[in-house]
């Protein structure tokens, strides 16, 4: 399997057009970039980026997904060629969602994947901790998450699973501060998750990364022929990609790790954010580009998956998992197995 590139365009007012078999990015009178179409699996634009219709036709024809995100990385729309979707699979998915035992088992698995991966983030922090007391606190966090994990199979309805998931998230984020280098903790003061809008810098960064991961998971659902709007753990709501949200759970800790390394390695600074009146915090334009570049690099990293012999680039993992989800839905496997990081 080949990790083809996704082209992310963050430059406001950029114009994307078709130029023979390449995609050309223009800003004003300048051509900034030319990418051969056969190198691309997707195009993602942030905010006010323009595209020509011939380019859109060609992208659809070549099954290159076009995703429109707003400037903060939130999903707006997607252009998908005629190939997408698989009616038999979707039918099976809808039947399975109504099957309580299957929905519950899948929800258990998605949350277990998230908790396991989150626990690794804390334990790694514990190994690197400079002070004994911080190490102890992080290890205690790891134990709390282990307890939540063990409690999962006993959760006999979806609300209980969601409750356990929320509790684990609280325990995890309560220790998150300790994962930030001490000299950066003032600038990136964090007490718990805030969203819509994020109210501190770390939250703004996390929200942005989660949006990109969700968008990748949504594309992966589409590519696997699944209906991204019908999930097992997440409740169906108009416009909400519930299945992509189920799938993204196990990947959130990867976003967290990237956020931490951007902060701890000073790849991102206080100047990367703007604070709006009233307290909402947003990412600044250039910082978005830097984060996208870091995200792209991270996706090249190959990781070992328990079901496959060869290591798989992180960027392909959502697709691999969406296909495993499809197999579970079709009854070809005993259940959905999340990707867990060792």
């Amino acid at each position, binding site marked *: 399997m080949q990790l083809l590139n996704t082209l992310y365009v963050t430059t406001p007012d950029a114009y994307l057009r078709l130029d023979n078999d390449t995609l050309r990015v223009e800003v004003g009178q300048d051509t900034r970039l030319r990418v051969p179409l056969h190198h691309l699996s997707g195009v993602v634009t942030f905010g006010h980026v323009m595209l020509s219709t011939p380019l859109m036709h060609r992208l659809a024809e070549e099954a290159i997904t076009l995703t429109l995100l707003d400037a903060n990385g939130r999903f707006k729309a997607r252009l998908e060629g005629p190939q997408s979707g*698989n009616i038999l699979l979707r039918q099976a998915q809808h039947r399975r969602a109504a099957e309580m035992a299957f929905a519950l088992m899948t929800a258990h698995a998605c949350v277990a994947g998230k908790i396991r991966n989150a626990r690794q983030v804390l334990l790694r922090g514990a190994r690197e901790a400079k002070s004994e007391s911080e190490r102890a606190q992080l290890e205690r966090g790891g134990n709390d998450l282990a307890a939540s*994990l063990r409690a999962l199979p006993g959760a006999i309805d979806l609300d209980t699973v969601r409750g356990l998931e929320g509790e684990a998230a609280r325990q995890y984020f309560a220790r998150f501060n300790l994962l930030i280098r001490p000299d950066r903790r003032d600038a990136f003061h964090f007490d718990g998750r805030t969203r819509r809008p994020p109210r501190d810098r770390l939250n703004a960064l996390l929200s942005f990364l989660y949006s990109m991961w969700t968008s990748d998971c949504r594309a992966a659902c589409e590519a696997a022929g699944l209906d991204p709007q019908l999930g097992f753990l997440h409740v169906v709501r108009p416009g909400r990609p519930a299945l992509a949200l189920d799938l993204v759970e196990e990947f959130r800790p990867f976003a967290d790790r990237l956020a931490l390394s951007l902060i701890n390695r000073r790849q991102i600074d206080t100047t990367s954010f703007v604070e709006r009146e009233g307290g909402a915090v947003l990412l600044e334009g250039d910082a978005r580009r830097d984060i996208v570049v870091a995200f792209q690099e991270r996706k090249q990293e190959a990781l070992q998956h328990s079901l*496959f012999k060869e290591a798989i680039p992180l960027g392909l993992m959502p697709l691999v998992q969406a296909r*495993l989800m499809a197999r579970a839905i079709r009854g070809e496997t005993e259940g959905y*197995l999340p990707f867990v990081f060792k």
Partner: protein
Amino acid sequence: MESPDPIPISALQHWRYCPRQCALIHLEQAFDDNLHTARGNALHARVDTPGAETRAGCRIVRALPLWSDRLGLSGRADVVEFLPDGTPYPVEYKHGRRRVRDFDELQLAAQAICLEEMTGRSVTEGALFYAGSKKRRPVRIDTTLRQAVEDCTAAIRSTFAAGRLPPPVNDERCRECSLRDRCQPEALAIPEQQRQLLARLFEVDE
């Protein structure tokens, strides 16, 4: 009653290679291009242009639509040569060299059966043309091949009707298969390993 959709002749070949591949392509509409299929497509772009010409008393027809209502098959012949007496002679173009298995013969036999039903003439021979070696090999459409077409079509029909994917073969065929990533044969191969991983999902080793 709605009669079932005809089975594409190409499905026979896929089925003979791997029943799961056949179902992925024709039931789940999966198609992942790789070098193999890309090369095949380039060759077919040439023979896919409909047309007719006459050479040495033979009328040569390209991209001819074929069907058999009796078997519920439909497809297209790369080339059909109509001999001076009107007997059709199908020629199937293959990229690469001659392969060990009989997929190509099977496909040719299916074309012959369709041509018989369409023209009312008996078709006892066809040919395979290998682009790799530029060799043309005549194939007799005998009863064994005809029976194989019938059996194969019946097996495909019942799998399609059930809407189920056959299990992965997970052998050396998978290495050359263009659908390998989608099929995930290794992931599905060892149910026991899956079960164990699932069972351990909620445990952590301290």
